[in-house]
């Protein structure tokens, strides 16, 4: 053995990059599975979970360490470029991705130290007049992927092969036959199919909901999935819910998790009368101006940061992975405007995982560090912040239409 140990020559061989990536992917995959298994053990076993389901492209993507890659991409783009290279480099980027450089506020390309700064460039306000009389203006440059009204039963019309319930995005409701106000998701906190005999809405009416909240690819979603995280719902006490005769187990927990600390009454108070829920999805392409602005005059009350995955949100992948918006890292801003409930949700993507809010310095997305602030509801999958202190009178942070709110940064 001694001779073998001493005399055997050491030879180095290059391993193929693909092998390296496959190893990383496998490592990440096992880590995610372990983490999911641990959290499943921590709460009761019959909680449903969402896993990215879809064709082989989705499977491959879900094994990749997207967040790590996104952070790496961010770091790479923060490397300062040599000054003489900057104008040519940014013009090449602009040519490839269709950036309109003359619209930028700062025309001196040499002053952008790296691509991350150029990507997050400001725009000349004169090139973006804010429509003064429209109820809703576009929060950003981009393409309207979807828009419409939440239909009876919470269905979103079929777009590009995606038929899913917007409710799954926001509230996950179905239409009960006896609901006093079919359009009022605040009333429809119930789930069927698991022995639920019916649910009592926060307002006290007995709701006979015999439909799932929402079904995508055979998986049911509830309010909780969107607002309080997919599989991390906790048995959080909400005002008064404890002693209502809600069905035991999952529905109750979902409801509790969904309505959050203020109780179901907050939700109920948001939606009343002959009102409808409307929605719009604006997709920002890599070359677009990546800061988002307030689409109207509203007051942001609560922010929920879901540290999800970072799949690409390109229309191509959205068609392949319907549950994308529920999986991806996103920041749900909840509040109200003159007609009632208002929410805006920037959703991150692989190349732009960092969502920034100008009025919320604490928000850190796409970060390794776990968010351990005391007011985080442990185990529910999101970090929550309340903006009541921003303005006691308005009980939230007021925003004017067109006011810059924040943006998406590279990585």
């Amino acid at each position, binding site marked *: 053995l001694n001779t073998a140990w001493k005399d055997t020559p050491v030879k180095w061989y290059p391993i193929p990059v693909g092998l390296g990536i496959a190893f990383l992917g496998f490592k990440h995959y096992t880590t995610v599975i372990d983490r999911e298994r641990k959290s499943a053990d921590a709460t009761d076993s019959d909680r449903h979970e969402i896993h990215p389901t879809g064709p082989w492209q989705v499977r491959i993507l879900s094994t990749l360490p997207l967040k790590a890659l996104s952070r790496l991409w961010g770091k790479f783009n923060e490397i300062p470029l040599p000054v003489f290279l900057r104008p040519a480099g940014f013009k090449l980027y602009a040519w490839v991705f269709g950036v309109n450089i003359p619209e930028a506020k700062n025309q001196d390309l040499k002053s952008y130290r790296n691509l991350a700064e150029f990507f997050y460039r400001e725009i000349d306000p004169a090139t973006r007049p804010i429509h003064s009389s429209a109820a809703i203006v576009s929060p950003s440059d981009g393409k309207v992927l979807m828009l419409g009204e939440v239909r009876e039963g919470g269905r979103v019309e079929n*777009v590009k092969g995606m038929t899913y319930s917007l409710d799954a995005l926001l509230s996950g409701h179905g239409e009960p036959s006896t609901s006093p106000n079919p359009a009022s998701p605040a009333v429809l906190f119930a789930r069927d199919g698991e022995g639920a005999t019916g649910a009592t809405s926060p307002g006290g009416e007995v709701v006979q909901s015999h439909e799932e909240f929402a079904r995508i690819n055979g998986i049911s979603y509830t309010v909780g999935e969107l607002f309080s995280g997919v599989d991390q719902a906790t048995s959080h006490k909400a005002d008064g819910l404890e002693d209502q005769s809600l069905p035991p187990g999952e529905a109750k927990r979902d409801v509790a998790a969904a309505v959050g600390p203020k109780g179901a009454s907050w939700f109920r108070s948001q939606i009343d009368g002959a*009102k409808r829920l409307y929605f719009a999805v604006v997709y920002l392409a890599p070359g677009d101006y990546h800061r*988002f602005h307030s689409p109207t005059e509203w007051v942001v009350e609560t922010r929920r940061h879901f540290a999800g995955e970072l799949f690409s949100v390109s229309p191509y992948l959205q068609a392949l992975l319907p549950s994308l918006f529920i999986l991806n890292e996103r920041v749900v801003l909840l509040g109200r405007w003159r*007609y*009632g409930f208002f929410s805006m949700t920037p959703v991150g993507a692989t190349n732009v995982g960092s969502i920034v809010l100008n009025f919320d310095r604490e928000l850190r997305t796409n970060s390794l560090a776990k968010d351990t602030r005391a007011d985080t509801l442990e185990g529910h999958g999101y970090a929550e912040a309340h903006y009541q202190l921003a303005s006691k009178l308005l009980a939230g942070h007021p925003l004017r239409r067109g006011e810059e709110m924040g943006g998406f940064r590279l990585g």
Partner: protein
Amino acid sequence: STVVLVFEAPEGKEKGKAGFRWIVERGSVVKMGQALGVV
């Protein structure tokens, strides 16, 4: 990246009352500040 808006607004079909309606279509390219919907 993507921005999702969901909000409550007066129903478009209310009698005698103006309701919300979209003034852009799906697939249209929009600029920040451009009108999307009116009441």
